[in-house]
């Protein structure tokens, strides 16, 4: 209901109570969604002694970034960061290219058996053989303990293909036709006309794909059992969180840290918080960009076919 219309309806006292309730509810729920992130953050930058005794609850006490600096000495963390960044960049780029190409081609009515192939792609969204057959398939293909396992399966994203297809269908066909008359072949049309025009939708799937890659946990858990150096960041964090023994043993030597900083780093609780924070921060950084595409991404998906 638009503001104008709403303001024309007379307000009774009970309306004010109702409004107040809504504000309180949303205020509390929003706080609930934000506070944990804030709590984690203040505990990573506060004085570690205070953190360990549980005094840092609502505001930071003292300030230092030694915890973040000390992370470079946490065993295995570096390789996880590199692997995760690499898969996010490579995996997302390839996924976008394949989705764009496939989404463009399935708009071509002339393709031999087009609807059959398109349906075959769409069905994979709703049907899968199951976790174990999938795992055995990856084993058969030699994609266990192999970085390619992060990249290749992710290249096919049927939902994104549908999004791109729907978007391309909204581009006026005359643009393409005129290029074809000028002698452009399909790849040229794709590169010169379709790609530049579908940047908005490609940005949408790229950003969602990147977050998905960054958050990936299951494939690492299943496929990298013999290669701890290829764990994704989420998997690494999962391992840390479940480590009941003293995590500070992971910090190998003081390596360049002042003694005080090294002592500061002793608590495993602080390490867990700091690693969590490092894993969250990139998502919070791209979040403002994602927001612009939320509704577009969701609503386009509703128009399938």
């Amino acid at each position, binding site marked *: 209901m638009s503001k104008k219309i709403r303001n024309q309806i007379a307000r009774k006292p009970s309306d004010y109570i109702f409004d107040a309730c809504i504000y309180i509810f949303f205020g509390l729920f929003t706080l609930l969604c*934000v506070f944990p992130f804030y709590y984690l953050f203040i505990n990573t930058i506060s004085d570690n002694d205070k953190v360990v005794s549980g005094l840092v*609850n609502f505001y930071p006490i003292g300030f230092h970034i030694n915890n973040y600096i000390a992370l470079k000495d946490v065993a295995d963390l570096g390789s996880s960061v590199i692997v995760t960044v690499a898969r996010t960049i490579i995996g997302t780029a390839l996924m976008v290219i394949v989705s764009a190409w496939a989404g463009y081609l399935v708009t071509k009515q002339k393709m031999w058996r087009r609807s059959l192939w398109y349906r075959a792609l769409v069905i994979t969204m709703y049907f899968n053989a199951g*976790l174990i*057959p999938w795992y055995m398939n990856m084993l058969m*293909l030699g994609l266990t303990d192999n970085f390619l396992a992060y990249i290749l399966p992710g290249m096919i994203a049927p939902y994104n293909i549908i999004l791109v297809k729907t978007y391309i269908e909204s581009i006026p066909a005359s643009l393409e036709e005129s290029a074809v008359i000028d002698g452009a072949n399909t790849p040229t049309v794709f590169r010169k006309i379709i790609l530049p025009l579908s940047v908005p939708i490609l940005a949408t799937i790229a950003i969602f794909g990147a977050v998905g890659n960054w958050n990936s946990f299951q494939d690492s858990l*299943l496929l990298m059992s013999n290669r701890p150096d290829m764990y994704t960041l989420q998997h690494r964090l999962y391992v840390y969180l479940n480590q009941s023994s003293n995590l500070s043993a992971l910090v190998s030597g003081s390596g360049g840290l002042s003694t005080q900083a090294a002592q500061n780093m002793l608590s495993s609780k602080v390490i867990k918080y700091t690693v969590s924070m490092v894993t969250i921060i990139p998502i919070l950084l791209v979040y403002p960009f994602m927001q612009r595409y939320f509704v577009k991404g969701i609503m386009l998906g509703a128009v399938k076919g």
Partner: protein
Amino acid sequence: MQATAFPTKKAAVQKPNHLLRLNRLLILFLGLMVFLPQFNPGRISMKINENASLFTTAISYDTLTNTMGRPLRMGWVLPEHFHLLMGGAAVILVGVLLCAVGGCMSLGNNRMKRCAMLLPLAGSVAMAGGLVMINHVYNIFINLEKADKIEPNFPNGIYVYAVVTALLFITALIVWLRLPRQVEEKMEMEEKYRLFLMFLPVLLLAFVFCYLPIYGWRFAFFDYKIGDALTAENFVGMKWFTYLFENAATRNDLLRVLRNTLIMSGLGIATSWFPIAFAVLLAEVRSTKFQRLVQTLTTIPNFISWVLVYAIAFAIFSTDGFINSFLRNVMNIAGANTDYLANADGTWIKMLAWGTWKGLGWSAIVYIAGIAGIDQQLYEAAKVDGANRYQCIWHITIPGLVPTYCVMLLMSIAGILSNGMDQYLVFENALNKDVIEVLDLYVYNIGIKQGLIPISTVVGVFKSVIGVTLLFGANGISKAIRGESII
């Protein structure tokens, strides 16, 4: 009359060429076989890794020999033998590649077809050469001094490949001979096939990662452990399917897991109106700034992984977490050190709460967009008729959202058995295992952790079949009631 009126058109319609089709089918089969370890012609010793396909044999020395460490160290076999084997496999691969290119080109006009058929001819010759090389290595193996230690084995794959190679050669040759000599000036291909070939790589990817896993269902019929080969001896038929229901322990496990799954999904469905309420109430907020702020901040949790949700749960609810430090240091309750995560109390409700915390803001977006799409004239008309705001919500806003809600509801009913495993895996511990283990997690626990591949495959097969049935059921209901398909 018609036929004589358009003689040219009739000539243009080609008879279907069955031999050419057979040829293409053979090439397709060949392309599949390259990746299946069962047909690996390179497994000329029982000691060679049985998960190695022809493709792996050709490209990865490490995979090929990782089970051959001892024979290589002792000098029973030499690395040269394996290099020769890899060479043979690589030659076969090149042959397959030539055939594949030929198969694709055979979709073109006659001139292109003539050219295309030469490729399978060359390819089958290459493959024959590769097979001879592998056979040569096999002969070396059986004549080795320590032949019994490396168990030479004449793989069935060699026969299969030999037959396919011969058939390919013959069909390609006949097709080539039968093609008309007078052909077109230029090689050309109809656009429909050109488009198809451009799309083919995408299809192949989808096939390998989405359809090929179905081939993994075969493990349900074998007594299999990781590392075994599938042979006639360990074929057990439907044993695991009946075992699942006859064995009391697994039956009880399954019932317990199903109970958890249905309760978690049921709670999810019972609360599936939360996002609507969220969206409707948010639309009632007068300040647009506040609206936007709430929407922005409540959507964040949707984009962090379940591991991070657990990290947050850990920070808030563990022994040293926020709740306990708050109670200890602010409320001065000395004994406050309960670990809220390490117990089984109210696990189902807790899981629902985490799911809601993570997903509510995000799920509401689709309804917020729906509210924005409702025709404003309806509200104006209602106002003229004297409706108050609650009546507007009840009679205009909510009916406007019901169609979307129906789709969401049907989808969640169709997915009732798939809760995903991440959430339950990260929150699982020894104390709450009995109540938190859902079907997906159960499959992971028995399949990957305990290595019971056949049983977990059977569970997966049931789950897939039921899931598809439910989905089509839901789709049927949607079609019957709304005249619209949801998939």
